Each structure stands twice: as structure tokens, then as C-alpha cells.
């Protein structure tokens, strides 16, 4: 190993040449570009993260607000609904009452009318019976009596 610790001039020259070449090129076009890019990206990511955090916070605020509004609207809707139902029920009750009243009046009126008719019928029957009685007087007393009774019976069985 004669040349282990004696640097050879030619190799020194080529080493200097290649190292300085690489250094020159990379110092100008290589490493600064890469490191700048990385730090740019680092800043970009940090900024984006901060923005995302901010946006997230805003969104959460909006969401909370919306939830509150939703609740209010629901409450109001429920109240409105109840009121509506109550109103409808009231109205229905009134209507029913009115109809019942009308029916009652109708019934009363019909009853009155029926009573009148019965009275008239009774009067007619009485007159018929009186007529028939008068026709039978010429005959037997006992039969007369039985006839009257029969007539009365018939009258009883007349439809009301």
C-alpha cells in the first residue's frame, strides 16, 4: 500500500473538479430550490390547517345556530298545530250542537203535528162510532151494548 497516504495530483485535480462542479450546480439549481420548496409547502400546510381550523369553527357556530333555529321552528309548529286542533274541535262541537238543536226542533215539531193528527183522527173515529151507534139503536139493547164495546175495542187497537 504505497500510495495510501500520499495524495495523487491527478486524482486531486479530478476530485476538485467533480466536487466543485457538483457543488456549483447543486448550490445554484439543486438544494436551495428543494429546501425552499419544502419550507414553502410547510408554510402552505400550516396556513391551510389554520384556515381549516377557522372554517371548522365557523361551521360549527353556524351548525349550532341552525340547531337552535330548528328547535324554535319545531316548537312554534307544535304550538300552532295544537291551536289549530283545538280550534277545529271547538268548531266541530258547535256545529254538532247546532245540528242537534235543529233535530230537536224538528222532532218537537213533528210530534206536535202527529198529536194534532191523532186528535183529528180521534174526533173522526168518535164521530164514526156515534154514527154507527145511532144506526144500531133500532135493534136489540143487548146487542147495542156489545157493539159499542166492540167499537171501543177497535178504537183501542187503532194505530197511534
Amino acid at each position, binding site marked *: *500500500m*504505497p*500510495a*495510501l*497516504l*500520499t*495524495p*495523487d*495530483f*491527478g*486524482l*486531486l*485535480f*479530478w*476530485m*476538485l473538479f*467533480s*466536487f466543485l*462542479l*457538483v*457543488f456549483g*450546480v*447543486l*448550490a445554484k*439549481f*439543486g*438544494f*436551495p*430550490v*428543494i*429546501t*425552499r*420548496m*419544502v419550507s*414553502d*409547502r410547510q*408554510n*402552505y400546510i400550516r396556513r*391551510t390547517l389554520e384556515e381549516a381550523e377557522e372554517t371548522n369553527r365557523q361551521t360549527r357556530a353556524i351548525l349550532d345556530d341552525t340547531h337552535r333555529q330548528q328547535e324554535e321552528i319545531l316548537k312554534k309548529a307544535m304550538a300552532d298545530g295544537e291551536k289549530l286542533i283545538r280550534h277545529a274541535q271547538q268548531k266541530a262541537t258547535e256545529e254538532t250542537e247546532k245540528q242537534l238543536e235543529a233535530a230537536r226542533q224538528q222532532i218537537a215539531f213533528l210530534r206536535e203535528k202527529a198529536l194534532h193528527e191523532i186528535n183529528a183522527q180521534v174526533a173522526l173515529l168518535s164521530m164514526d162510532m156515534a154514527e154507527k151507534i145511532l144506526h144500531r139503536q133500532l135493534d136489540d139493547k143487548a146487542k147495542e151494548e156489545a157493539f159499542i164495546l166492540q167499537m171501543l175495542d177497535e178504537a183501542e187497537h187503532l194505530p197511534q
Partner: protein
Amino acid sequence: MRFDWRIWILTWLAMALLPASLQAADDGQHEAQAADEARAVGDIIGEHTADSYWWHITTINGRHIALYLPVIVRSADGDWLLFSSARLAHGETYRGFRLAAEGVYKGKIVGHDAAGAEYRPWDISITKNALALLINAAIMLAIFLPVARACKRRTANTAPGKFACAVEMLVMDIEEEVIHKSIGDDYKRYSSYLLTAFFFIFINNIMGLIPVFPGGANTTGNIAVTLVLACCTLIAVNVFGNREYWREVFWPDVPKWLKVPIPLMPLIELFGVISKPFALMIRLLANIFAGHTVMLALTFVIFTTVKMGTGITIGMTIFSVLMTVFMSVIELLVAYIQAYVFTLLSAVFIGLSRPVHHGVKTKKIYTEKVKIN
């Protein structure tokens, strides 16, 4: 299960070795032959780890297949000559130049002056290591320039590709964890140099571990390479050092008698100025050179034991392959660690050359970092 298997191999190896060592002891001639072989192996390892005028790729049936590289030398009358190193192969002479077979310049191109004495001409031949450096430099550019271009084209809100991601990760790891933390806030000025140094060393280390062309050249295990790197760090430290740094060198905070009659501490500090980059140079060289040597030696275990019988050869082959795989993995780690250590220590030395106010903080960082090493 695994444990049993290991025991089996060891037993087997021991059994195979035993008769051979007995046999070897009997045979003195055999021993001498083995010594010759060992020397030959040493030479081959030396050749593989050293620089060369051609790139030996493989040998098939005794024929060498090599890439002959351009030789660039300055002749005695001042002309620069460019010719293929194939003209110097097998000890041939071309226009008065040949490869020295022995002596101080062994393996280098030498010329002969008028008196017939050997001299070393100016020689900037593109040797194996020089070519490897150029290839690795090209690889490095091919990795970083497209990534940088992609970075330029892209806006901050688009994701980079897979490859760019990986490169960015490596770059940012070194820049943030090593350079920024060691130098301090004005690290931007130095980060290009330190990143270049890191990736240059790292790529050269990795390429050195690939056994076939264009890898396998022992670039970072060569003193010329580490010398240039260490000199760059020396310059970065001392040229851009601030006043406080030089005050600490020439007038350090020690009792006056250590610096007034004889400038003892300033001398030590000045020595430190040189010894820090010198340590960088030797550390990288020794680590990579040793790695290559150990790997080659482990591979040659197969060939040196081939004459000792089939049993041994099989045993040693298994041993050699296992150890080589193990060493390769270790060397991958070393490739990263050495690049990292070089960059880290360079950054620490640069950080020390810019003390803000009276170095309490920097000294602390320094001692922390040195512990890692």
C-alpha cells in the same frame, strides 16, 4: 432451529480444519507456497483498493477484460499527451512513458529524463477513481436536478412524486437535524456545501460497495478525495469564521501565564484548527478503506483455502459468503454513518467558528456532538 444450524456449521468446520492443519504442519514446502499465496492475495487486495489507469472488470479464461482509460500527461518538452492506457498495459512503453514496476512511483506513470533517471510527469489521467468520481457526480446531478426542477414546476399545494418525496426527506433530515441544529440560525449560508458534501460522500460510499462496474471504485477510501473534502471544510470554517472565533484561537479564556510568555494555548488552538479537518480526512479514508479491505479479504478466504481439500473449501466458502453478506450490511450502515459524521462534524466546526457571544452555548453543543463520534 437456527441455533442448531449454527452449531452444525461450526462443528463441521472444525472437523474439516483439523486434518488440514496437521497436513500443513508436515509439509514445509506447502507452507512456503501458502505464504506466497497470501502475499499474492495482499497484492490483489492492494490493487483493488488502490487507484489504477484502467478499470479491470473481470477475467474470463485468463483474458483480462478491462476498460482502458485516457492517460493525460505532460511530456518533458512541455506538451500535453493524451493516449489510451492500453498502450501501457503489460509493462509496455509509449513515448517514453511506462508504469513503474517498483520504487516510490510503483504503479504510476513515469518518464525518463536525459540522465536516465525516473521522474514523475504532470499526470492528470482519468484514472479509475477519477472516472468513478465523475460517474458518481453525474449520478448525483441526475438525482437532484430533476427533483429540483420538479419542485420549481410545482406549486406548494401539490404533492410531490414518490422519488421526490424520498429525496426531500433525506435532504430535509440532514438540513434540519444536522446542519440547522449544529450551526444555528444562519445555517442557510452553509447548507448547500454541507448537503453536497453529505450526498457526495454517501453516493461515493454506496457506489464503492457495488462490486461491478460502474461501482466498486474505492473513491472515498482514497486520500486525495478525503483531502479535498477536508480542505473544503477547513476553508468553510476558517474563511467565514467571525472575530470571536479568531479571538478564541489567539487569546482564549485561560489564565494569562498560559499565553503571555510562551503562547502555549494559542499554539494548541492553532494546532486544533488543522487537526480537526485532518481528523475528518483520516476518519473517512480509514473507515472506507478498511471496509473494502475486509470485504475483499473475506472473499479471498475462498481462494486461499481452495488447495486445502474439498471439505475445508466448502466450509470456508459458506463462512466467507455469510461473513461477506454480514460485512456488506455493516458497510451499508457505515456508508451512511461516515457521510453523516463528516457532515455533522463539519457543521459543528462551522458552528464553532461563529460563536455568538462567548461560546457557552456552542461549547455545549460541541461536546454533545463529539460524544456521538
